[in-house]
């Protein structure tokens, strides 16, 4: 019996907190021969197999991703020019840039993330309802970019939050961002979002536990 999240129908990997008087969930699952994937989530007999209805739901989600109106620096201007008349992101159903994180699906982090802004950005990410995706737009966001050696820049947004699509470029052309959005569409259709791994594992234990940087 996999734990299916009541609201979104997505499986949430093992519950994060072991409440003392209750056997931890992964032991319950191990009885059914499910082994744990390093990225979080389980494989084996009871895995939830997306059916046609899930595919329709994913199609609906993919075609109506509402980005959050939040830009950090120069990439924000290119994000705005993506939403304007020349190359129009509204064609893919993304126009109403929602101002409040509660109604947004995609957090397009556009610009250099500094240490002072890391706290508010993580808080924004956690205020967004599930299912949510994150697009890191621009080299500064992906890896610190031209400010990698600075003392006050977080060298890559994936140090503070799980990122689904990285869009290279400084700033990436509007067509580049739209290409990134198409990649996000594919990712949404195959439910390969990263956010579910964040819920229980927290950022630093995500991909690069062993990575020495």
């Amino acid at each position, binding site marked *: 019996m996999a734990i299916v999240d009541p609201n*979104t129908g997505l499986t949430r990997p093992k519950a994060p907190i072991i409440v003392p008087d209750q056997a931890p969930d992964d032991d319950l699952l191990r009885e059914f021969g499910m082994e744990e994937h390093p990225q979080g989530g389980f494989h084996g007999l009871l895995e939830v197999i997306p059916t046609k209805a899930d595919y329709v739901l994913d199609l609906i989600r993919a075609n109506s991703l509402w980005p959050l109106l939040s830009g950090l620096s120069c990439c924000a201007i290119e994000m705005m020019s993506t939403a304007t008349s020349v190359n129009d992101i509204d064609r893919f159903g993304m126009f109403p840039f929602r101002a409040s994180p509660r109604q947004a699906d995609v957090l397009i982090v556009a610009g250099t993330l500094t240490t002072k802004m890391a706290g508010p950005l993580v808080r924004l990410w956690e205020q967004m309802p599930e299912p949510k995706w994150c697009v890191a737009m621009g080299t500064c966001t992906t890896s610190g970019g031209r400010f990698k050696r600075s003392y006050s820049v977080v060298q890559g947004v994936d140090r503070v939050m799980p990122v689904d699509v990285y869009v290279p470029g400084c700033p990436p052309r509007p067509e580049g961002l739209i290409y990134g959005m198409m990649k996000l569409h594919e990712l949404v259709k195959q439910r390969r979002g990263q956010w579910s791994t964040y819920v229980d594992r927290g950022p630093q234990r995500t991909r690069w536990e062993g990575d020495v940087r």
Partner: protein
Amino acid sequence: MDLELLLGIGRFLVATTLLLLLTVPTAFVIIQMELKVIARMNLRLGPNRVGPGGLFQSTIHGFKVLAKEDTIPDQADNTTFTLAPWMVYMAAAMSMLVIPFAPGAIASDMNIGIVYFFAVLGLSVVGLLVAGWASYNKYSLLGGLRSAAQMVSYEIPLTLSVVGAVVLAGTLSFSELIAWQRENVWLFVAQPVGVVIFYIASLAEINRTPFDMIEADSELVAGPFTEYSGMRFGFFFFAEYVALFIMSGILISLFFGGWLAPWPFPAQLDGFAGTLWGILWFFLKTYIFVFVAVWLRATLPRIRVDQLMGVAWKVMLPLALVNLFVTAIVVVVLDL
């Protein structure tokens, strides 16, 4: 319980469920129209990927909002937080009952239709105020208070502008009003000032530009529904568009001759064909005014709160009273 009363209740129940189910598609249609029209006015292509020419884009938005997680903030007051969207949507849906779609097709042809409509309209003020207060967020509190002030102060000119028409027509029910308009002239000719005041006050009542102070994106992040996500936000989103449809419907019923065609009725069209003909003309005229509201949204900036109040109390109210006064004198002198 005699059979006739049972039949009446049955007919009323069927009509209300039909209308409640009708509100969702109207919201989808109007959202789709707004997306496309504003896109065209901004010289850009509207949504064109979902369905033929992007027609199903608004339904996709609706279903996606349905499938989102609806969070309740930690310190929010749970019961009122969940009740607020219900109140706003019910206000919009209940006022659908009195809209005269066609000669026979009114859910409940009350003889005090207009009074019922304005009474129900006040319910959405309560909904927005409660939403603003319950979500324990400064932005939504400010948004809630602003919306309460705006809607209350615009309800008075809205009602007064209609009283002039009622005095002329002598009735309070929509169907008789339309019947009066069929014999005499359409009311917007008789009440030009009343139409203008009604239209402006109705825009303010449903928070459309240039009066969309409450969900002013740039200042108060999203007004009273900052903390709402998922289908709760969906209710607010749809209620606004259903209210736009209803306001346009009421406007044309009161002043532009409801389901009357601009030229006199062909005699033999009555019964079922007459109803169809009426429905056609009703929807045609309603969507003209919906288009005007969307057109305003694309062009006009927003009015500030104090200017908003100033216009309501200092300009619209006296104008409405003068209009009523003049109409009363005309009616008495010419004893229409």
